[in-house]
């Protein structure tokens, strides 16, 4: 590939950040200094497009923004046209192409936080730091809804620092500007401060009978020995006894369906991938968790990271994958740190790598961080993101099991889906199916917000009895921004039960709205979310989400029938004609609020 550069030079720091990831350049052809020898031969850097996102992170983590010199240097190192790399870098909300302060504060103004006073936090931050845009941003859901309202400061440096403020009170704001980066739980790549113990997110922690949450808050997430002592790696041993086909049979028989939102039968996905003649096969664990109100995957990854490592190993064994990617959202510093540690420890102890447990299985996990883009959780956008392309969904067919990551057969599964495989193998498919566990992310107007584990069949009322509610419950948003509002608390929390009620379990969001919450501004926030997070590829969603937001602004000032008709028509077109699930669901919650809650009556 013949590349043309404008000649911008990286700073020493930028060069060092990239070299720390990629190693020093081999010659002047990929960005090193020119020597006599370089003039006598032509060479080129190995194209390594999939290192683009990690390289952008490397610079952004160290310097805080990505200059033209830094981008050109990355392009030389990886043989990427600068116009394309620019297109990728500008896709992600966590990157800046303009100089900005090293410390940037992300203030969540999303649904659960809004229900818990995010607006007053936002206003105080604005008073203190000035208008949003450089030193602070309004952020979509940070996945810490149980501690709403939340804020996260990210500070570039070596190592970068992530400081959590949750709950963020108006009083903590004054310290957000220059809080001293003191560390608890120092980690390989990032210092995380301000965190609370993981059991705080699990009101049921330590109770008997839990399957998915059994170790959270009770077993040290850093200790592989403790994990094994608490039942870890019995499922993998059972898998080896059953053989790959036997594992798939168990998963099929268990009836497990995906927990990422689409509820597709996991066994069928695994079976279809295992049968593909094309090789290699890839495994992708979708840990991009960005649906507003969702935080269950974070809690699993922070509180029981080895469970995910073990589950991914089993999935890889069953479907014939030698490599797995764990794609985790960029705003989850503690989960990243915990998993980096768990993967490294498992590798050192022969539980990842070649010949796992002496059974001849070769499998390893590479962790990839997202950079602020909800759409990258869509199952084909995640491939583009990993490959170093813009995180735009691909059109289906072909489906991932046929042509997925790098064009090869790929299994994509959600974190919660994968960890369900452990109890399936430990207890057997039938025992599992008799009491199938499901996680719910309960937030909003409740006494004890957090992740709850129930067996399928419990009703919404039973869940809210556990969490307790505050104020007078007006409605519950099920399934997040892509879900729907319901008012009937006797809905059974099953995929079928919620569907029958015109809602969805989605990613397990249960956001309780009391009568103190302004529904109109909640709807505006949902519309804003979809407008911000649309990848921009297809017209119904790119323009439709903007028109939906504009109409909601008008409607919250004055109810007008023409605008209601307009919303319906635009909404139906987004649902019918958009490429992916983002556009297809962008009108769900608004529609249900109009029809069931009578917001604009």
């Amino acid at each position: 590939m013949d590349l043309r550069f404008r000649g911008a030079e990286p700073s020493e720091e930028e060069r060092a950040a990239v070299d720390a990831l990629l190693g020093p350049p081999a010659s002047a052809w990929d960005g090193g200094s020119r020597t006599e020898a370089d003039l006598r031969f032509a060479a080129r850097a190995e194209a390594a497009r999939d290192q683009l996102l990690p390289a952008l992170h490397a610079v952004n983590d160290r310097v805080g923004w990505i200059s033209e010199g830094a981008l050109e240097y990355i392009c030389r190192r990886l043989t990427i046209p600068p116009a394309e790399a620019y297109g990728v870098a500008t896709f992600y909300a966590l990157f800046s192409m303009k100089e900005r302060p090293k410390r940037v504060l992300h203030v969540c103004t999303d649904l659960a936080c809004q229900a818990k006073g995010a607006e007053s936090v936002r206003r105080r931050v604005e008073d203190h730091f000035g208008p949003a845009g450089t030193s602070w941003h309004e952020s979509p859901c940070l996945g810490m809804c149980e501690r709403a309202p939340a804020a996260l400061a990210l500070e570039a440096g070596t190592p970068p620092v992530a400081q959590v403020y949750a709950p963020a009170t108006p009083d903590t704001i004054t310290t957000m500007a220059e809080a001293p980066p003191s560390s608890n739980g120092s980690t390989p790549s990032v210092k995380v401060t301000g965190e609370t113990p993981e059991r705080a997110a699990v009101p049921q922690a330590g109770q008997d009978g839990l399957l998915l949450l059994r170790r959270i808050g009770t077993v040290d997430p850093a200790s592989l020995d403790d994990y094994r002592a608490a039942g870890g790696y019995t499922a993998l041993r059972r898998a080896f006894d059953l053989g790959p086909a036997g594992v798939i049979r168990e998963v099929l028989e268990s009836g497990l369906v995906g927990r990422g939102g689409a509820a597709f039968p996991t066994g069928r996905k695994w079976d279809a991938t295992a049968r593909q003649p094309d090789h290699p096969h890839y495994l992708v664990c979708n840990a991009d968790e960005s649906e507003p109100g969702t935080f269950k995957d974070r809690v699993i990854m922070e509180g029981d990271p080895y469970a995910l490592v073990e589950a991914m190993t089993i999935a890889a064994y069953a479907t014939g994958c030698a490599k797995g990617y764990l794609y985790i959202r960029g705003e989850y510093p503690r989960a990243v740190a915990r998993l980096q540690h768990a993967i490294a420890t498992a590798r050192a102890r022969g539980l990842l790598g070649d010949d796992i447990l002496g059974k001849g299985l070769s499998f390893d996990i590479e962790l990839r961080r997202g950079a602020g883009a909800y759409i990258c959780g869509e199952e084909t956008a995640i491939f583009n993101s990993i490959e170093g392309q813009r995180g735009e969904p691909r059109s289906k067919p072909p489906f991932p099991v046929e042509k997925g990551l790098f064009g090869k057969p790929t299994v994509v599964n959600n974190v919660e889906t994968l960890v369900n495989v452990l109890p399936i193998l430990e207890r057997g498919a039938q025992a599992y199916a008799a009491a199938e566990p499901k996680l719910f992310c309960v937030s909003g107007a409740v006494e004890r917000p957090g992740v709850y584990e129930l067996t399928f069949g419990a009703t919404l009322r039973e869940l809210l009895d556990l969490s307790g509610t505050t104020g007078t419950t007006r409605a519950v948003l099920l399934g997040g921004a892509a879900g729907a509002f319901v008012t009937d608390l006797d809905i059974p929390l099953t995929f079928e039960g919620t569907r029958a009620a015109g809602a969805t379990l989605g990613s397990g969001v249960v956001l309780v709205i009391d009568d103190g919450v302004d529904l109109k501004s909640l709807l505006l926030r949902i519309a804003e979310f979809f407008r911000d997070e649309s990848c921009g590829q297809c017209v119904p969603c790119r323009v439709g989400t903007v028109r939906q937001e504009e109409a909601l602004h008008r409607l919250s000032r004055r109810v007008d029938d023409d605008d209601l008709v307009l919303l319906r028509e635009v909404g139906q077109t987004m649902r019918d004609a958009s490429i992916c699930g983002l556009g297809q669901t962008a009108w769900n919650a608004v529609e249900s609020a109009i029809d069931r809650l009578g917001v604009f009556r």
Partner: protein
Amino acid sequence: MIPLQPPRRLIDVEIDGETVRVPEGSTILDACAAAGKDIPTLCYGDTLTPKNACRVCVVEVEGARTLAPACSRKAEKGMKVGTDTERARQSRKVVLELLGSSVDMSTTPRAAEWVEEYDADPARFGDDAATVEQPAKVDNELYVRDYSKCIMCYKCVDACGDQWQNTFAIGVAGRGFDTTISTEFDAPLTDSACVYCGNCVEVCPTGALSFKTEFDMRAEGTWDESKQTETTTICSYCGVGCNLTLHVQDNKIVKVTSPHDNPVTKGNLCVKGRFGYGYV
């Protein structure tokens, strides 16, 4: 050289109740053409891989949850397709409204005709509806980029990139409504990798990319396609023998295109053929 291909099987597809027979691998759009149906398309390009981004070509496929883009969805044996159902027409109408309200479609061929056919009303979103309006980028003598007319069909990027030119001067930048076609850091074309082959201009469906001659004449009000003639000839600059179609108005060449059905060049040219007509 025409590569030998295995003979393709024929499959039967039902379009609006009428059965048509098309080779396996055809798109629904191909089948519609075989059935004599005229489906609007914008981002589809006859020389490019479908990006299926604009969604103006959606049709209803029996049994499918959502509508399907005719331009890229493969026809399958026994598929029942409705091109003119209420649902498909409604989506096309709204897509035209969404585009028409955000983008200047005054130079998009057939746009006005479709707006009328589908009874679309782009003005319904009000005067405050966000648009992509911006000044045209005039940074070189050969062609102009007027992105207030851009519908983000990705065709120019695909033509500049790995589908034809392999120059990669432009890419898609930003996200959502703020997405644009851009060089790195929005640098002027003269600073970019652009080689002025004009193959992006060739595929642009809206007139967002146009010859500087056309842009200037439109500004003066002298551009008049009814007065233009088209002559196809062979480029004399080198031995490849590309076809040039010279568009002539008032005895002056006002732009150069190239036939897309040429089996070798498929409408692509280099800077000499495209813009080197000063000598004629």
